[in-house]
């Protein structure tokens, strides 16, 4: 029964390298090595980011639920991100700005750098500088960073519905999003944005 290894296993490093290769290969193949394609999501001329993102999340969520149901994985052992009200929201705002201004996120910038995008290499340098700034100024907001701790809370526990229903609602939401973003993209690309 999974998970087979933990963070301290040496095997985890090897497996992570292999998973990383798949990660980079898929992102690059999907065109996520181009900042202009990625940013299209904010201007309506290319919603690939939304499609890949929600499709991946939905697939993994359904897969995990089935693996749990079949007894292949111990869902209580997997990592669930902790929620810190203020810090998580502020982080999202900063990342949104970083995305629209820089054109990448940390994962996509690696793929873009690997095929020779100089702007992506600069972006990576920026992420490191940003992390350094955060670490140096940490005492200023150490309290804020750990305040509003809600723990590893899931959306179904918070609302008080079953996990299966929550995943079903998520799937419906994703399909509706796919439909409307496809319609918007059709309209906007008629105005011809070439990149």
């Amino acid at each position, binding site marked *: 029964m999974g*998970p*087979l290894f933990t*963070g301290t296993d040496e095997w985890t*490093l090897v*497996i*992570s*390298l292999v*998973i*990383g290769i798949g*990660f*980079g*290969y*898929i*992102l*690059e193949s*999907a*065109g996520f*090595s*181009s900042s*202009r394609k990625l940013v299209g*999501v*904010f*201007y309506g001329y290319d919603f690939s980011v939304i*499609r890949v*993102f929600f499709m*991946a999340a939905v*697939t993994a*969520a359904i*897969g*995990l639920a089935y693996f749990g149901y079949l007894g292949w994985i111990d869902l209580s052992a997997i990592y669930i*991100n*902790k929620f*810190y009200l203020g*810090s998580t929201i*502020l*982080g999202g705002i*900063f990342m*949104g*700005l970083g995305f*629209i201004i*820089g*054109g990448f996120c*940390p*994962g996509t910038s690696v793929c873009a*750098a*690997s*095929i020779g*995008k100089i*702007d992506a290499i*600069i972006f990576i*340098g*920026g*992420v490191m*500088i940003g*992390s*350094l700034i*955060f670490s140096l100024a940490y005492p200023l907001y150490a309290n804020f960073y750990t305040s509003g701790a809600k723990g590893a*809370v*899931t*959306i179904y526990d918070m609302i008080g519905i079953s996990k299966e229903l929550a995943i079903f609602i998520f799937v419906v939401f994703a399909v509706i999003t796919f439909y409307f973003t496809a319609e918007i993209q059709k309209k906007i690309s008629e105005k011809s944005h070439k990149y």
Partner: protein
Amino acid sequence: MKNQKKYMNSYLAGVLLGLLILFSFYLTREGLGASGAYKRVVAKVEHIVVPSYIENTSSYFHKYIKDGKEPMKNRLVFMVIGAFIGGFISGGINNRLKLKVEHTPNITSKKRILFAAIGGILFGIGASFGRGCTSGAGLNGMAVMAVSGFVVVAFIFGTGYLTAWFFKKLWL
């Protein structure tokens, strides 16, 4: 450029990425991530340049070196190295390997570089407050139906949409 192949269908890419996340959880109990690797590089540099600073238990990156831990010996560091290799393989197969600065014809390379740096810095700060980036906090978080995953994704995209108008000259 002329032999450049088309991109993979984004729904297919999403399913493949989702299966990869599933197997990552199955094998290592955690999903994908990227920003953690950069944080560890910074921690490593701090450890080399100013060891007394990071050895102070109150410093932010102390957690990466405590009990004699090696900050680079971490799954996310290996994952990002892998992502670089995987991206390079796909770029090679699809004839997309080329050293260049990508930008719209309306801005200069210099301007693109400047904004890539600013965006990177903001993202680095954001991924620290958010305890992970688009993949580690957002994608994984949604895969396990964590509230934090949905919140962080809503705020990343929400902020992007709300501010897109101000930065349209960079992209359109």
